[in-house]
């Protein structure tokens, strides 16, 4: 189900995604993704809507490569996102900003009618050693691929929040366009050491000011 990053030339907004006509390649991704879709009829309909919008977003943004979709119970999407990712592989070393993230997005049926924790949707698999106040500290025992560092997208994700919005919030969290560094805040932080470091290095935030849909892939992509 792999595809190359797609050149973005789209004038619409997020609310227009359902009207995007998928090209043959992305239509195939969509059909394979929903083929094993299970659960109640209401949930299956919702999965189809969410997956189609996600695939449309990947097509028009050029930032996303869909790796795997599993819609047998909760909706799970493994995808690569073109985004600056701050990492600290060596605790005493320099910050390393990678250019892509392998993420797992888990979207449970309960999210349709119940607010969910902001840290329960997205986990970063690669690169390991993500260094963000709003991401769980990495496991140093796993140098190559982590088990999944949870990324917190806010104190709560409201019931019915669509997948496309979760993807955008993830982009905001990784680029630090949206950030919470105050340990005393009721929402808390997931990595106090990272929060302290970024407080001392505010001038490095955000990692990019580019918008999600403004992505221009380079020839080396």
């Amino acid at each position, binding site marked *: 189900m792999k595809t190359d990053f797609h050149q973005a030339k789209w004038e619409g907004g997020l609310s227009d995604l359902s009207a995007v006509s998928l090209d043959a390649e992305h239509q195939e991704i969509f059909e394979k993704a929903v083929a094993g879709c299970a659960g109640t009829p209401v949930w299956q309909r919702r999965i189809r809507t969410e997956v189609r919008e996600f695939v449309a977003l990947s097509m028009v943004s050029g930032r996303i490569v869909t790796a795997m979709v599993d819609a047998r119970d909760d909706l799970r999407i493994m995808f690569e996102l073109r985004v600056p990712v701050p990492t600290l592989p060596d605790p005493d070393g320099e910050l390393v900003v990678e250019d892509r993230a392998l993420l797992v997005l888990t979207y449970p049926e309960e999210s349709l009618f119940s607010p969910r924790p902001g840290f329960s949707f997205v986990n970063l698999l690669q690169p390991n050693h993500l260094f963000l106040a709003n991401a769980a500290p990495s496991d140093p025992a796993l140098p190559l691929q982590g088990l*999944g560092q949870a990324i917190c997208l806010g104190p709560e994700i409201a019931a019915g929040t669509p997948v496309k919005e979760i993807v955008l919030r993830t982009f905001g969290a990784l680029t630090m366009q949206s950030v919470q560094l105050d340990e005393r805040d009721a929402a808390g932080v997931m990595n106090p050491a990272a929060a302290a470091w970024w407080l001392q290095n505010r001038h490095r935030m955000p990692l990019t000011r580019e918008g999600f849909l403004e992505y221009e892939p380079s020839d080396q992509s």
Partner: protein
Amino acid sequence: MQDTRNSFLEVFEGPNPGHATRLPDRERLPAYVSADPLPLERLDDLRALVIGTGAVGGPLAVDLARLAPAQIGIVDPGIFKAQSVATQPIQPGEVGCCKAELMARRCKEISPRTRVLYYPGAVQELSLVELAQFNMAILATDNLFAEVESGRHCTALGIPMIQGSVQGETMVVHVRFFGNASADSPCPACGFGRQEWDLFGSEVSFSCEGAAAATPRPEVATQPTMSTSGQCGLAASLVINQVLRATLRLGAPVEDSLLEYCGMTHRSHLSALRRNPDCPCEHRRYELSTARRPLERCSLAELAKQAGPDELLDFTVGEWRWAERGVCECGHEQAVGLFVAPGHELAGHCARCGRPLHCQPFFLHRRIGAACFETIGHRPLHELGAERVDWALVRSGHGGVLFQNPAQENED
């Protein structure tokens, strides 16, 4: 395995057994005008759960105890605050006490023969099997999260739910009766408009620090009840009136109705509650069934067979997660096929280096689809890693069957 179960605590009689004999036992209940000759005996079967013991739920629980039902359960995560004395049936010396426990003890004192249980946490932390031991739920909280979750669970289990609330500014009391006769009955969320959904989203938050917990506990920011103890007591009395009418079948049926009383005009209005076809809640009915032997010794095939011939959707085995694949610290990935406990997500050992395998979020499932059935369906759950199973849910095309453990081991 870590014990992640949340269950009720029971209150037992105090050290003064003679106390019980002095208490009246329904002596003052009138001979209601009814076609049924022995309606009062129905109270012996009443097992009522009170969710929220504040200004409405507190007096309501006490009134309920005076009916001497078979069982009372009380759920409230809070403690009494100094301000509680203004609206709730407590003494100043009881400030700081656990609400659920204090009210449960009071109910037990009033009705020693009633089995009284309490849970000092949020209702959504209790499993369906815990809730299934009640045949009526009474909701007395302004917490929309508890409202939606209780409504969803009561719809699933077919438990009638009565909700009492007050609007202090207008002196209006609301009593909603959700009959839950079928999965298509209305639930509290059916009546939500945009405003309620927005409020619902804004009053719930989760601290990042809860990320490590197996079941993150939400922080719910609700406003305190702005009303008088009298008006809250009125709401409690009207709820008890509906409990009596439903239990003893007095008067016209009260199911799926909204009773509004306005203290400023002394007018009351009764209207019907209706199912909203666009309600996002699942509106599914689960039949409660007891497994023929301890659940961990059952296979999914046995449970599916006992559940009946309906088209299978999926299985949920208590709080266990199904790990399809795992990854080792050495980087090796391999198929697993084991149940793992939430929060302790280790799944066997690496075939290459022998170190523990960790679960990956993409390959960790709460539900097992019917497709997995062919490979693991005939193996007992304990052989697949689920050493102790409190409940299991088999969902099918139209609803599902919720299995609980047998009371005593009964091997075939």
